[in-house]
């Protein structure tokens, strides 16, 4: 139990998908102008990363490893992720058209979010059990969402601050992102998973 908790803390905070592994930077800069959109995108990405990791684990264990097709891992995972996004979109559309109208905008973005593929590839290398792999994926995605919301909060405050013209917009956002990454370095040493 303790190992699982440490593994999850490590995935969410120490080896954060965005600030330590530098994955998913497009959405990190693009969807973090407001907290609510960042939270929406974070939840959608968390869902897709968790579901696609479950599928990727099964494909890796029962297809790629079993038949010695490891060299097809990346291309297979891309296919699985795209299918997971399509599946999610289809299910949400069936479950509630109103939800689809509101959240459908996030789903195409996730297809090309490299954080999803990055987490799946990390899982394949670590040879975890199904539940551990799913929890690792969930924790990584939770870390992604946490950073998205924190960064969106900082950017909302930055929008109200008087920033020198030279730094206004993306430059100050990049500086803040760097400071946030340095702050997250404070978590290193908690866990090494």
């Amino acid at each position, binding site marked *: 139990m303790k190992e699982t908790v440490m593994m999850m803390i490590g995935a969410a905070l120490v080896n954060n998908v965005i600030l330590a592994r530098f994955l998913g930077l*497009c959405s990190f*800069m*693009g*969807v973090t*102008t*407001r*907290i*609510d*959109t960042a*939270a*929406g995108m974070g*939840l*959608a990405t*968390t*869902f897709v990363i*968790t*579901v696609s990791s*479950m599928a990727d*684990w*099964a494909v890796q*264990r029962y297809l790629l490893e079993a038949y010695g097709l490891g060299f097809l891992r990346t291309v297979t995972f891309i296919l699985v992720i795209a299918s997971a996004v399509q599946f999610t979109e289809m*299910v*949400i*559309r069936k*479950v*509630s058209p*109103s*939800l*689809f*109208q*509101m*959240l*459908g*905008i*996030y789903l*195409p*973005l996730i*297809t*090309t979010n490299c954080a999803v593929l990055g987490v799946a590839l990390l899982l394949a290398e670590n040879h975890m*059990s*199904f*539940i551990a792999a*799913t929890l690792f994926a*969930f924790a990584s995605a939770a870390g992604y969402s946490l950073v998205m919301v924190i960064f969106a909060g900082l950017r909302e405050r930055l929008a109200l601050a008087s920033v020198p013209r030279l730094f206004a917009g*993306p430059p100050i956002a990049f500086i803040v992102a760097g400071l946030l990454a340095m702050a997250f370095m404070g978590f290193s040493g908690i866990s090494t998973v």
Partner: protein
Amino acid sequence: MTVTADDFPAPAHTIEGYARVVGIEGAVAWLEPEQTASCGGCAAAASCGSPGLGSLAGRIKARRFPLDNRDALIVGERVVVGVTERALLKAALTAFALPMLAAFTAGGLAQWADGSNPVTMGAMIAGLFAGFLASRRMAHRLAARGELAPRFLRRAQQDETCR
């Protein structure tokens, strides 16, 4: 059921978007969210990898929504519509958090009871679908209260964009 601006108190924080009137059916106007250069016309549109996916005509058409036409909108008109920040968060929690919670609960119970990978996987998939059913109920409840419907804010100015 369609919902208009009059049904809501004016919210403090509204997420605005652009839509075009594509049809009028009696007292109802059908709107399509505007086709943007990227997913939602975000600041990183130029460097984003998903503009092709975000601008597919079919995808835009699928997101068509009705609005009570109390403001005498006409076909082709551009309007600004909005949803409350809280509504977006509620929708995201309903659509994504609820199924995930159900999946993890089922998976945790299966792992505790059996401990084998195939059983845990089966339980999580079953939990996921049970969660989707729960989110369907929740979404119906939210929709009935009009919390998920975009509302008409104003007619868009000529050349008005989100940037």
